[in-house]
């Protein structure tokens, strides 16, 4: 009997710790939203698509709120926010990659009719004589684009960006180097002209 009672009590304690953590997550998320939207926008140019991506990530996050590991008690508001932000960036990244995989499959089946991203990029570059930085970014391979978004736009440390991308720091920095070279080549004309 007593065992049972203990077990119930401890599961109750765990549950309340969990609900505190979920409450903290929900409470912190609004502060993270603007940067979440910016991160999504670097990955997906269309405003609506980027907000779809952010919304999808929020929904995924709330479904898996129990997986967020709240910083230990006594953490500053900034530390909590940084923790939520990192966790959310990881979810956005996964949602984005999942979506691109799904799109590629869909495209393979449908026969290229749904290639909105690519079509938009081509149309864009033929209309504009210069390649904008946003358009250039869209031409980078996924992994390079992520490294640019996280380090150069979001200003994260190499370690934090590597953690989010789930790769070693060395892999991140070499992707970032390749991305920088590619962007410099693509923007070469634009820089001279402006």
């Amino acid at each position, binding site marked *: 009997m007593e065992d049972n009672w203990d077990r119930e009590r401890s599961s109750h304690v765990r549950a309340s710790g969990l609900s505190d953590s979920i409450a903290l997550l929900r409470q912190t998320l609004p502060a993270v939203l603007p940067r979440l939207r910016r991160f999504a926008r670097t990955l997906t140019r269309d405003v609506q698509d980027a907000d*779809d991506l952010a919304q999808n990530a929020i929904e995924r996050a709330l479904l898996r709120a129990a997986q967020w590991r709240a910083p230990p008690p006594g953490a500053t508001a900034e530390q909590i926010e940084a923790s939520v932000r990192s966790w959310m960036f990881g979810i956005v990244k996964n949602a984005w990659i999942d979506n691109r995989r799904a799109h590629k499959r869909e495209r393979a089946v449908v026969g290229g009719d749904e290639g909105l991203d690519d079509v938009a990029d081509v149309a864009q570059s033929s209309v504009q004589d210069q390649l904008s930085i946003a358009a250039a970014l869209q031409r980078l391979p996924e992994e390079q684009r992520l490294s640019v978004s996280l380090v150069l736009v979001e200003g994260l440390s190499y370690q934090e960006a590597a953690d989010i991308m789930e790769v070693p720091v060395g892999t991140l920095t070499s992707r970032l180097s390749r991305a920088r070279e590619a962007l410099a080549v693509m923007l070469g004309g634009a820089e001279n002209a402006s």
Partner: protein
Amino acid sequence: MSAAASWSDAQIHAYVDGELDADAAARLAADSRHDAVLAARIAQQRELRSLLRGTFDPVLEEPVPQRLRDALTASAPGAAVTPIGAAQKQRARARPAWALREWGAIAATLVLGVLIGTLVMRQPGGLPLEMAQGRLVARGKLDTALSSQLSGSAPDAAIHVGLSFRAANGAYCRTFSQRGGPAGIACRNARRWSVQLLDGSAQAEAAGDYRQAGSALSPAMLGAITALGGGEALTTAQEQQQLSVGWQ
């Protein structure tokens, strides 16, 4: 012997990214003062960073769309997850896909999710706007009205300027409405009027027709003005002053 040759690209990247250890960073900074090539390599990387920040930082100033706020407060976390592209598919049903593609890039520069596609479909002439350096800027009669019309002075004109205010970043911004068309906000930036918001909602159009500056702004317009940090509307005297100096 050139100092620049001894610094690799990786070290320069780490320096610019704030990831080089303090000693090496100090040596690199010292070398760069005597070596123009090294200084240029650093400057190029800094420029890339600032170009990226300049392009994407404005997203931080945008009002967060209501649907994202709603997603945060959703009480039932078991609800279906929104597929990415849902909004786009909805729009795609409403009008041909080519418009989507053409206007996707332009929409990316707007503050709020906007009905620019609808607006373009409805009036082939549309507002005189163009893309310049990734921004949507006013041209023609819209540019003229924004630069030279006193607020509330031309209720019968095709384009009517409602009010002027100064954004938190110091730029002058003005609300405008097109007769029977959308309303919007443009801010003066690099000698052009950069359109921050186009609101094609029925409410905005009604407000545009009603033409009572300030009193009949749509929620989207009010939200955008707040997001831009707009305070008091400029007085007529202040506007006259700005008309004469080009809103710089």
